[in-house]
């Protein structure tokens, strides 16, 4: 499923995906359309632009991941609004690509994301590293719920941020390719989990769970 408010982009991405033998089960031009068509289309992968008419890409990501935790969201963003990208990743997106990426990069990213892999750009790795540092420097430092990276994970993430491929990282650290992948995935998973816990805690504090009784 392709969500982009720009018709030329939507068509281009759709065409590329179809030409590569992937099935596009739906397209949407804004957040509302995306949420309306998502349940019927049941896509494996959603290629999502962040800057779409409301609800925005971050909200759409959170909602569709809530409806179907097995769906994979690949963010395809033009302006690279850094905080938005981070929010989308925390909301459950597992891949991020800038629009200037080539067709091959896009196809590879879609395939990898659909296999449950995470697609990191060096830029995203830098953001995630920064987010973990902010969390550990934050006022909730003593809070045992604050996610932290292991030394190995930090090392791997830093290498991703320095533009190294998983293969290069595996060689340099003498690890298997799969292990590197797992480390990278863990960094996102912890962040997403933390985000969900925070949201739930917020909901309870605000009494939003009160309609259960």
């Amino acid at each position, binding site marked *: 499923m392709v969500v982009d408010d*720009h018709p*030329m*982009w939507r068509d*281009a991405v759709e065409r590329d995906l179809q030409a590569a033998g992937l099935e596009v089960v739906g397209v949407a031009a804004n957040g509302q359309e995306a949420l309306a068509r998502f349940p019927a289309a049941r896509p494996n992968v959603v290629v999502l632009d962040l*800057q779409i008419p409301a609800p925005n890409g971050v909200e759409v990501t959170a909602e569709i991941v809530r409806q179907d935790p097995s769906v994979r969201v690949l963010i395809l963003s*033009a*302006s*690279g609004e*850094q*905080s938005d990208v*981070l929010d989308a990743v925390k909301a459950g997106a597992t891949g991020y690509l*800038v*629009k*200037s*990426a*080539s*067709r091959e990069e896009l196809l590879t990213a879609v395939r990898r994301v659909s296999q449950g892999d995470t697609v990191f750009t*060096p*830029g995203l*790795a*830098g*953001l995630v*590293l*920064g*987010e973990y*540092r*902010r969390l550990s*420097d934050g006022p909730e430092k003593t809070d045992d719920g604050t996610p932290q990276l292991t030394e190995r994970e930090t090392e791997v993430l*830093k290498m991703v*941020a*320095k*533009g*190294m491929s998983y293969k*290069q990282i595996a*060689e*340099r650290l003498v690890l298997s390719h799969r292990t590197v992948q797992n480390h990278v995935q863990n960094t996102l998973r912890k962040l997403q989990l933390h985000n969900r816990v925070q949201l739930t805690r917020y909901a309870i504090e605000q009494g939003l769970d009160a309609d259960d009784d």
Partner: protein
Amino acid sequence: MSDTNYSAPAAIAVEDRLYRALAVLRVVVTVNAVGLNIFRRDNFDHPNWAVVVIGCMLAWTAFAIWAYAERSRRVLALLVADLALAATALLLTPLVKGEGFNATIPGYWVMVVVLAWALHWRWVGGLIASTVITVSDVSIRSDFSQTNYGNLFLLMIGGPIVGYMTQQVQRMAVERDRAERAAAAADERARLARVVHDGVLQVLALVQRRGAEIGGETAELGRLAGEQEVALRTLIRRHDAGLRELPEAVTLDLAEQLDLLEGHRPPHVNVATPGTSVVVPAHVGTELLAVARACLDNVARHVGEDASAWVLLEDLGDTVVVTVRDDGPGIPSGRLEQAARDGRLGVAESIQGRMRDLGGTADLSTGSFGTEWELTVPR
């Protein structure tokens, strides 16, 4: 200060609020005046006339509270009548109380008219009204005590001061109103610009992508579009950073400055930052950037114009780390040492020297993954 428009809605709102406060003060000083006159009722030569004068004061007070409440009723006639009445009440004192009185009939009641004039005509109004009251008071006294002098002195300086302060508050209110309007307009413009920019970025990225696929001259077109895309994106990011807060000139945001290197070529540079400002002293930031640039130039020279390089900025709290990596074949071991032994101060030496001057370090690692400079400076 003369360009302040005192009939602007914001200025009138200030005046309205101040007159509401004055209405409260009017009641307080009137109660005080009536109370004191009852307490000293034995001092009157003509008690009946005293009742008439105080009755007039009461009636006028009620009328004035109503009249001053509305901007359209605050006309010259009202303020002149207010002042004339207060002066008359003073001037009648020797006739009603007899010569050699101590306190005037209105007493402190006269202060409200001075404040009313100060609110309406600012310091000039305050000065005129306090002068009229002072002259009236002095003219009826046979002997002038230190206390009288003190009261009149306070009145003379109080009127203009309150007037001046009113003027300042009104001026600030008008300015704030103007600034709020400007901010709202700027927000709206920024919102529109964001929409337009996003559209432009999308198209540029599309041209770049399709151009590369079609090849030939179109590929060149695509490359140009790609460069413009990066330029615009950087501009927007810098603008957003500027809107947040302008850091002092003695500091520098490394994240923002390094972002400017993105898309820089040769070599093709990729920048990763923590996504927030990383502020360092300006001289440290400038030198660190220069060193990073030197590393990149080195990549272009030794690995090639088409090489890719990655810059990673990390804020570790007590230190800031900038890493520059390329995907070249690495530096053969012993080559740097050989250069040093030959007495050639290579780039490596210069980079390390510059980092030492900043109190930091420059660590070089090289291998199949390329060459990596890790530049660390303490905060």
